[in-house]
């Protein structure tokens, strides 16, 4: 859908990437200063790469060799900025239709904008502003949607309020989305493809489940945020104990609270630091979730930690243990062991549709 191969030098910083983004949500992840915003600005035409090529579908937006550089108004790129950038002198309605009124009724409906139409941007909350900004971008019928940290300026409750709208958008429109973020739980919930940028280069990329469960990603994401994402199905509920049972290819998991409908598919993120490894099936302990797994990779980091890749059924999990434990347990690729996941390790922000 989107091919972006660009080079740009800005003072000390250099961006040099070659990314193929398929349909769905492609998350661009990286620390601040890794080149994420430069990259999306190049797609939107707000900054000009030194060289390279940007193609969306059949349309060439930029090609230094053929001297093509479409100006931003002709690119049909919907851009949702971190700071919303609503026009302060226009009502919400006029903001929405500034670039067009493509599929207006549907956009207003999926984003819940009806009650906001006659209000002014100054009176909206942060979450409402981002919904309006998203609606405004969608109504100009974009070939691609760019979202540059749209939730970064919001607090946790506002994020929780707006994420379901994004999930709905992802599932109901065919527009490919480039989603820039530095928040792993957002990426885990929304993305289908993940590209991790590090100092202007692509460090790793691929389907989100595969990338997040790869031990090599741990130092890039930070040891506290790394963790695999698996797709599960809601299999049952235990009302007495207030637990929900999730089924996936590697077994079943019990999670606290009641969420989802029976049979619904849910993505959950299991932080690597909350996975405990055991050589024998443990007995007499409080953790509810014990899964038989096979070690696929053991990767020592720079610090005291070791990232361990695990296969559970057809899914990949990721654990992080200390180097000392790894040595004492003699962890090795191919070994059959047990992964213990505390039911409370997965927070509500890590569960998505």
């Amino acid at each position, binding site marked *: 859908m989107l091919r972006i191969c660009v080079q740009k030098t800005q003072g000390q910083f250099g961006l040099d990437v070659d990314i193929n983004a398929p349909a769905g949500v492609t998350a661009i992840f990286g620390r601040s200063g890794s080149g994420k915003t430069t990259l999306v600005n190049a797609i*939107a*035409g*707000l900054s000009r790469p030194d060289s390279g090529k940007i193609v969306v579908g059949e349309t060439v937006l930029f090609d230094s060799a053929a001297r093509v550089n479409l*100006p*931003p*108004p*002709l*690119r*049909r*790129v*919907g*851009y949702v*900025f971190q*700071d919303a*950038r609503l*026009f*302060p*002198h226009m009502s919400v309605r006029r903001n929405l239709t*500034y*670039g*067009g009124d493509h599929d207006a009724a549907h956009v207003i409906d999926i984003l819940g904008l009806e009650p906001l139409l006659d209000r*002014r*941007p*100054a009176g909206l909350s942060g979450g409402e502003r981002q919904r309006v900004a998203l609606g*405004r*971008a969608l109504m*100009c019928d974009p070939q691609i949607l760019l979202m540059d940290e749209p939730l970064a300026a919001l607090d946790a409750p506002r994020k929780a309020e707006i994420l379901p709208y994004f999930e709905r958008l992802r599932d109901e429109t065919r527009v490919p989305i480039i989603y820039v973020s530095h928040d792993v739980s957002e990426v885990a919930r929304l993305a289908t493809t993940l590209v991790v940028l590090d100092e202007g280069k692509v460090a790793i990329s691929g389907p989100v489940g595969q990338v997040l469960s790869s031990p090599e990603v741990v130092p890039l994401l930070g040891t506290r945020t790394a963790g695999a994402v698996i797709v599960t199905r809601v299999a049952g509920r235990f009302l007495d104990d207030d637990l929900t049972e999730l089924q996936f290819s590697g077994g079943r998991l019990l999670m606290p609270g009641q969420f989802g409908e029976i049979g619904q598919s849910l993505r959950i993120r299991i932080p690597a630091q909350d996975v405990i490894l055991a050589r024998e099936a443990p007995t007499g302990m409080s953790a509810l979730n014990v899964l038989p797994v096979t070690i696929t990779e053991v990767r020592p980091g720079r610090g005291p930690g070791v990232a361990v890749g695990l296969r559970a059924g057809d899914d990949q999990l990721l654990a992080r243990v200390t180097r000392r434990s790894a040595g004492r347990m003699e962890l090795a690729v191919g070994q059959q062991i047990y992964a213990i996941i505390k039911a409370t390790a997965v927070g509500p922000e890590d569960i998505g549709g």
Partner: protein
Amino acid sequence: MMDLLGPSGWAAIMLSLRVAVVAMICALPLAIGAAYLLARKRFFGRQLLNGIVHLPLVLPPVVTGYLLLVTFGKQGPIGSFLEQVFGISLGFRWTGAALAAAVMAFPLMVRAIRLGIEAVDPGLEDAAATLGASRTRVFMTVTLPLILPSILAGAVLGFAKALGEFGATITFVAAIPGQTQTIPSAIYGLLQVPGSEPAVLGLVTVAIILAMGALLISEWLSHRMARRVGR
């Protein structure tokens, strides 16, 4: 009051208003253009343009008036061209007074409008561009409405400056009653004549009323506009 001012006093007031309004209206689009270039564009000769715009502010008004006289007067290169091609004569006419007032008011207008443009987030213009708006549409629908309060401030400042302009005007077009004698030059002229204090007092009062009126109107308008742009 009518008697106090006398016919020549009234002529000076009406002339001053006409000169100031025409000067302000003609200078405004140019001032917006210059302010936009200086605030947003980086080009070769930007500092030179900035210097030329500000020159009337720092030069002695007599020098500006003299320069106008040698360029726009009957013998001047631009003045004779305008006269021959368009039949427009500026020397010793009220049009010349308007030109002098516009030149002197220009830097003040540019400064006020430039401040307003610099306060507009260029990110809003980028956002409008990604939504498919051409540069012209971005300017007309986003930039211009957001800088209207500062354009208004610049216009009022320019009007007040044009109303009070003295040095460059009297140097360029002298002070011919009914032709080029504005309020300041009428007051100055009257002060040379013994026993004309009542007429001076009348003109001074009118000058104060006009200035205060312009200020109050602009305050009221900018208040309304500021509410409209959601600040």
